[in-house]
């Protein structure tokens, strides 16, 4: 059992333990709490069903009884007065209240003293267990498809897209989603089995059978979750405060609003005496209002970012390996510059700089320093994949129209497709035509620097006009856009500016 014991200077007076309690194992927890009391630790608080906090007592022989008393449903919650009444009745039959974990209320008494059992009927106890268990299962049935959707959105792109390798949030959230999904599935199966087995037991007049498992899987997953949540929080603060991505912090406003409204509903509306029907209407209205507020805030944030307000005009780019218009032209006024910084586990340092001047156009620099050289190579291959998709997206549209009409459009020239190429391929049927043309577009767009113009570890031109390029020097990867990167003079300027010699 994992234990974290406080190290007070004078005296250790509390103990934190990673454990697990739910409706399937609480009698085994009763036995564990008895052993702990024997060692001088009395349960004081249980957080999220898995962090047990004990307070120091004189070692005592105590009996524990964990009682089911349903605290909360989707629309109702027992008020403090109702819980007090329940506790006072338990006390009048000989049990002292210790703490609770969700619907499980923990009581203790001195061993050997007389007290009425808190649960006196197995059938009723199972009926409550079944009600609570089915509620968990229903909730999991809603959460599982949602988690699968999130996993599909996050984990799928984690291995392929340029953005994901540089996106720290995605890399932190992905394992969290995977863990949550596994826990939900395991929990659903576990509770279903428990209810099914005990339904039979009750029908046959037998006792309820509880789990004696040590629940190591849950304990480890909960511990991992806490670690991931801590990293997530630190990362958000790092993005917002150190990298000055204020919008990341602002983006949490909708979540904060949701939390505040959710808490207000839980602690004020649920325990109130408002009729159930009105509570349901209230919940739906609250959800609609929260969604509208969140949408407005999100739109505001997007507009805020879109306007470039976040960067406060031209940023200072000293110390950044980026290109700007004035690196190539004299007497040019850089009209606009936008610097966005990022950091992730796989690519600890990255930034993008967008430099723009009237008449001269724009230059984009995306700089990344990967954790290892292999990851830098992987990033290069992601840029290549991205460029392939982009070229197909740009030139691959309306191919059926051009095939059927037999029209060669000059814009094919930008992709390196000549009239001859077009006419040769037109002899095929439409499927063959499309397939061959797309293949040709890709081949002409992505070209390795065979002439070794750049003399670096890896260099790929990503467009036929050579206005896009990805280069790698060790762990450093640059994606550049906006100049003819096959021009030796330009190459020399860039290599000097980006310190690639």
């Amino acid at each position, binding site marked *: 059992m994992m234990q974290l014991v406080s190290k007070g200077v004078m005296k250790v007076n509390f103990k934190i333990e990673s454990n697990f309690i739910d409706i399937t194992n609480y009698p085994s927890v009763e036995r564990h709490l008895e052993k702990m009391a024997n060692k001088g630790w009395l349960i004081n608080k249980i957080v999220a069903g898995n962090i047990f906090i004990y307070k120091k007592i004189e070692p005592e022989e105590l009996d524990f009884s964990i009682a089911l*008393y349903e605290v909360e449903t989707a629309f109702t919650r027992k008020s403090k007065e109702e819980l007090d*009444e*329940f506790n006072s*009745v338990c006390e009048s039959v000989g049990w002292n209240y210790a703490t609770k974990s969700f619907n499980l209320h923990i009581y203790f008494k001195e061993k050997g003293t007389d007290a*009425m059992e*808190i649960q*006196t*009927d197995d059938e*009723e106890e199972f009926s*409550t267990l079944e009600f609570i268990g089915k509620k968990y299962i229903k909730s999991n049935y809603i959460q599982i498809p949602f988690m699968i959707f999130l996993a599909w959105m996050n984990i799928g792109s984690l291995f392929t897209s340029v953005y994901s390798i540089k996106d720290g949030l995605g890399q932190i959230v992905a394992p969290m989603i995977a863990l949550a999904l596994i826990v939900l599935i395991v929990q659903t199966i576990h509770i279903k089995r428990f209810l099914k087995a005990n339904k039979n037991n009750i029908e046959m007049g037998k006792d309820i059978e509880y789990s004696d498992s040590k629940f190591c899987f849950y304990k480890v997953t909960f511990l991992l979750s806490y670690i991931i949540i801590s990293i997530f929080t630190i990362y958000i603060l790092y993005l917002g405060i150190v990298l000055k991505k204020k919008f990341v912090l602002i983006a949490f406003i909708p979540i904060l609003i949701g939390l505040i409204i959710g808490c207000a509903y839980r602690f004020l509306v649920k325990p109130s005496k408002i009729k159930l029907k009105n509570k349901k209407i209230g919940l739906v209205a609250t959800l609609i209002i929260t969604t509208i507020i969140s949408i407005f805030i999100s739109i505001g944030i997007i507009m805020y970012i879109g306007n470039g307000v976040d960067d406060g005009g031209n940023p200072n780019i000293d110390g950044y390996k980026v290109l700007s218009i004035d690196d190539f032209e004299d007497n040019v006024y850089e009209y606009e510059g936008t610097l966005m910084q990022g950091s992730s586990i796989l690519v600890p340092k990255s930034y993008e700089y967008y430099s723009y001047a009237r008449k001269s156009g724009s230059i984009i620099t995306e700089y990344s320093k990967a954790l290892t050289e292999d990851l830098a190579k992987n990033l290069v291959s992601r840029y290549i994949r991205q460029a392939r998709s982009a070229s197909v997206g740009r030139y691959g549209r309306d191919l059926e129209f051009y095939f059927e009409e037999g029209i060669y459009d000059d814009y094919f020239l930008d992709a390196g497709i000549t009239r001859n190429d077009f006419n040769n391929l037109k002899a095929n049927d439409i499927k063959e035509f499309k397939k061959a043309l797309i293949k040709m577009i890709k081949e002409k767009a992505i070209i390795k620097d065979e002439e070794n113009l750049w003399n670096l570890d890896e260099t790929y031109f990503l467009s036929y006009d050579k206005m896009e390029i990805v280069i790698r020097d060790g762990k450093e990867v640059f994606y550049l856009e906006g100049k003819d990167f096959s021009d030796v003079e330009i190459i020399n300027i860039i290599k000097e500016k980006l310190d690639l010699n």
Partner: protein
Amino acid sequence: MAKKTIKALTQPMYYILLSLKEKRHGYEIMQFVEWLTEGRVKVGPGTLYSLLSRFEDDGYIEMVSDNDNKKTYLITDLGKEVLYEEIERLKSLLNDATSVKGGNEGEFQNRK
């Protein structure tokens, strides 16, 4: 409120409904049941309060007062209907048992 179909009331269900022919709060219900059954039936607080919540949701009982953290309940007409049906069911069980005990099962052999 429509009556839910209940197969048969369990022992604690039966005694709780029976005890609420008069206004009573939780602890009084427990004491009343113990007194009525001369200690044969005990309803613990976990069992009692789970059932009180469920009965209130189903409309079998209603809260009539809430003073000093003590909610007092009373059986409703719907609750009485359920209770009386259960009493009738128990009566027929008892009649059957009495009949068999009194030797009337011979009629079964001679039924043709």
